[in-house]
Every structure is written in structure tokens, then in C-alpha cells.
């Protein structure tokens, strides 16, 4: 018997639970609402920008805000609450009685919790961009992808931390609270970093924040607030890519740790 079938069946079962009625319908609606309602504000913003890349970046960023919040709520629900309750209740034990390796079970759970949420998010976002601003988006598709990569890095970092906490503590509730705190903490941390950068006239604090949240590096690359507040940090595209790469290395490392713990150490 091949390994594909048990994996696909466990994935299908996990999706069935994570996105049962009315969650899929509700979150698809919220994604659409967040994307299209915020799209109304884009015209005023991108009229101030200069280059085509900067315009594409601004349009994409203005669409992301609301949907990213919906994405993080969905991930919090599926990873912390969903996987956490599966561990607490014993559904993972039931999955462990099937002929599928532990890593396969975790992959199926993560694909359901994160993969489907990400597909929903990107599907609606890209559709919205294509509908609302095809003349801007299509020629600058690389910038659009880069903007999504930079903005998704921090939510994925939170997801990886929540995954580790859920596995180690086996209490989804605690991971959920930490996830929410981390999400809101970044706004405060970035604000503090900005103030520190202004006070010291050094971009070091912003650079440190950008390692875990590279959307800030991208923001400063495209002008951001540096002109207004005289913070002289304008990372080049290569530097920005480095920040994005570094953040994904951290995210990937945490997920690998989660896999190692789940496969080799998790005692149920």
C-alpha cells in the first residue's frame, strides 16, 4: 500500500474538521470583506508614490492589512485551538493508529491549518489585485510577490512559535494567548524601534526588528516614513531580500524543530 492514500485521507479529515460549516464560508467572507473594503483607500495612497514598483507595493500593502488580520485569526484557530485540542482530546492518538509516519500526520495537520488558510488568503488577494488594478499589478508581479512574502513572514513566525508551544505544552489555550500577544506586540515593538531609531539617529533598532518582520525593511526600501522623520535608513533591494530570507530561515528552523519534536520526542 502506498503512503499517499493514508496521507491524503488524514489531510482530508483534518480539512473537514478545520473548515467545517460555517468556518470556511465565514472566513472566505471575511477575507473578501477585508480585501475589498480596504481597497477603497488605495487611490489616495498610491497617488503620492513615484516609481512603478512603489505604486505596486503601496497598492498591495493597502489590500493586505484587513485580510492579514483574518489570516492570523484563522491560523490561531487552526494551529493553537485545532491542533491543541486534537492533542488534548486524543485525536492525534487515533491518527497514530494509522499506517502513516508521525511527520506525515503533522504535515497533513499543518497543510490543513496553514496551507488552506494561506491559499484562501492569497487567492482572494491576488484576485482582488487583478480586478482592481491589473495595469499596476501585472507588470510588477515580482514586487507583489515580494510584498506578500515580507508581510506573511511574521504571521508564519507566530504560527511556528504557536506550533512549538502547542506541542510542548499540549495546551492550545496558552499557545493561543501567546499568539495573540505576539501579534499585537509587534506593533508596539516596531513603534519603540522607530522611536529608538529617531532618538539615536541609527537604524539599528529597525534593522533588528526587520529580521523577524521584514515588512518593515520593505517599507523603508520603498520610502516608508524615513523622509518624514529624518530616519536615514533606505535598505537596497538586495538588503531587503536578505531580511526576508533571514526571517524565513528563522521560520523554517522553528518548523523543523516542531517536526523533530513531533517525530522523535512527543510522548502522548
Amino acid at each position: 500500500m502506498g503512503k499517499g492514500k493514508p496521507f491524503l485521507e488524514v489531510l482530508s479529515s483534518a480539512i473537514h474538521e478545520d473548515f467545517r460549516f460555517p468556518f470556511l464560508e465565514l472566513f472566505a467572507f471575511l477575507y473578501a470583506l477585508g480585501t475589498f473594503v480596504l481597497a477603497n483607500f488605495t487611490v489616495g495612497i498610491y497617488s503620492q508614490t513615484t516609481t512603478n514598483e512603489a505604486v505596486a507595493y503601496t497598492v498591495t500593502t493597502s489590500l493586505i492589512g484587513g485580510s492579514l488580520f483574518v489570516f492570523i485569526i484563522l491560523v490561531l484557530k487552526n494551529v493553537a485551538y485545532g491542533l491543541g485540542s486534537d492533542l488534548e482530546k486524543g485525536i492525534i492518538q487515533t491518527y497514530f493508529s494509522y499506517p502513516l509516519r508521525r511527520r506525515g500526520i503533522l504535515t497533513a495537520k499543518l497543510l490543513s491549518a496553514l496551507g488552506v488558510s494561506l491559499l484562501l488568503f492569497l487567492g482572494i488577494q491576488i484576485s482582488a489585485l487583478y480586478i482592481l488594478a491589473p495595469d499596476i499589478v501585472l507588470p510588477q508581479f515580482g514586487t507583489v510577490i515580494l510584498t506578500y512574502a515580507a508581510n506573511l513572514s511574521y504571521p508564519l513566525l507566530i504560527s511556528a512559535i504557536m506550533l512549538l508551544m502547542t506541542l510542548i505544552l499540549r495546551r492550545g489555550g496558552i499557545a493561543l494567548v501567546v499568539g495573540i500577544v505576539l501579534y499585537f506586540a509587534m506593533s508596539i515593538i516596531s513603534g519603540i524601534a522607530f522611536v529608538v531609531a529617531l532618538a539615536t539617529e541609527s537604524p539599528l533598532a529597525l534593522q533588528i526588528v526587520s529580521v523577524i518582520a521584514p515588512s518593515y525593511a520593505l517599507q523603508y526600501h520603498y520610502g516608508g516614513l524615513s523622509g518624514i522623520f529624518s530616519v536615514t535608513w533606505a535598505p537596497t533591494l538586495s538588503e531587503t531580500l536578505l531580511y526576508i530570507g533571514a526571517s524565513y530561515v528563522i521560520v523554517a528552523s522553528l518548523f523543523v524543530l516542531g517536526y523533530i519534536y513531533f517525530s522523535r520526542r512527543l510522548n502522548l
Partner: protein
Amino acid sequence: MSLIVAEDLSKSYGRVVAVDSLRLSLGEGSVTGLIGPNGAGKTTTIKMILGLLKPDKGWVKVFGQNPWDNTAIRSMIGVVYEKAFFPSHQKTLEYLQRVCRIFGVPESRAMEVLESVNLEDASDRQIKALSAGMLQKFAIAHALVHKPKLIVADEMTANLDPQARSELLDLVLQLHRDEKVAFLLSSHILPELSRVCDSVAIINRGRVWAFGKLSELYEKYAVGIIRVSTDSPEEVAAEIRKLKYVEDLRTDIRGVSVRVAEGREDQLYEDVPKLAKKVKAKILGIETGSASLEELYRLAVGAKEGGKIVGQR
């Protein structure tokens, strides 16, 4: 061939030793009970057998292989936990059909196993809508889908009413007889295990204290047990306890179980009526060799501890 072999198996939770140098060997086609009180180490042992827990020391082999993350073994074992948990928003038949696809068996098997546990009428119900008894039956059906050679069940009747418990045990006997499935059943409810098990492992403080066929264990530990049924167990017990040839004694609401020194059974038969008369108690019956599994457990543990436990309740 041995289905399960454990050697020097140990597991601790912090300072608490749950399983301590446990040895076990289970043969094909048997219904073996893992008996012991709460906290004896039964669940931890079963979890190590199922590859859910890693032993701190020693090893366990199931079908000759290490069970940790071993997909080959999972195809040969069915598992029933004390509390069954499944993705609760799916329908019973649909979920079992999914399990059939996971194990690569025809989907028609799903209805077969539902029928075998008399749940065919609940085939269209969501799993979360099943009662506790039905859920345990569903768990057994789930464990049977891939026609396992061995079913490991941990306290599967603990949360059930007597009726549901009796039906489940009948099902175990039926599956053992008709489908030649071997069982490893853990329970602290001993009378029910004596109904279905042909051998038992008596586990206490994380160790196997006695293991073997029930008949052999009775012969070894329960020889000389005499059951005295009376309307005044406490008073009769107090008198019997004074007899020098009594090695062990236990009272319950209906009478006294007494173990006497070898060859002194007849003496007790003579003494009991006199003692009863002395305390004005009525003797309702005296019979030899009727130790329950519960008594056997206590005797085996008492013998290992190397002392008499006369007078304990």
C-alpha cells in the same frame, strides 16, 4: 510467535516511577488481561507498546519490531482507548469508509464492522452524537476495520454502564472466537476480565508481579481458598482470624474469604460452624476454590511482598 515482548521496560514521570523493569511476553491468539489498581502502570505500559511513549530504559517489541513511529505494526494492531476520540463532526459510516481507504481495504468493510458491533442503525449519525457506550462500540469497530491480529484496549469499559460493559465483553469473546483476534485488555475492574481472559499479567507499582494462564495462577496462588458466606461477616471474620492455621483473610458484605495452610481445609470446615454459633451468626454456605480474580490479584501481590496480609480488607 510472541506478539509482544517487553524486557526491563521502565518509564518515569519526573520522580514518579510509572513502570519499573517490566517484563512481559504475549503469545498469539490469547486474551490477556493487564490487571492492577489505578496508577499501577497499565496505561503507561500500553502506551509504550503502542509506540506513543518512549521507554526510559529497556525495550518493547511488537510483532518483533520497535513500535515507535512504525507504520508496519499499525497495520496489524487495533487500538481502543479508555475514552475514544475521533473527528467528531464526521458521520460514523463515512469516517469508517475513510479508515478503510487509509488501510487499503474495501469500503464495504465499514458497514461490516458497524454491523458486528450492532451500530448499523447509527451509520448516518455524526460521531459526536453517539452515547458513551455507542462510542466505545464505534471505537471497537474502528479497531477492526483492517482485520488486525491483535487489539490493544486500555480500560475500554471504564466509563460504561453495566449493560454496555457486558455487551462489549461479549463482543470481545465473539471476536476472539470468530475472527481469532488476540486481545490485550487492561482494566482495574477485575471481575469483568475473569469473564474473558485466558491469561493475566498482574501489575503493581509498575512491575509484573505474576503472569500466566488464569488456571495456573489460581493453582499457584489461590489453593486453599475457602469462601464462607454468612449474614455477619465481621463477627465471623474476627473469630476465624484467631485460628492459627489461617494464612489470609478478607471480608466483604456477603462473607469471608479465607486461605488456610496446606491440608487444613477440612479443619476450617469443622471450626466455622462452631465459631458462627459462638457469635450467633448464620452460615449460608462454605465452598472451596472459589477465589475471584480480585482475590487472586491480592494473593499474588501479597505473596510477592513476602508477608501475610491476614486481616486486610
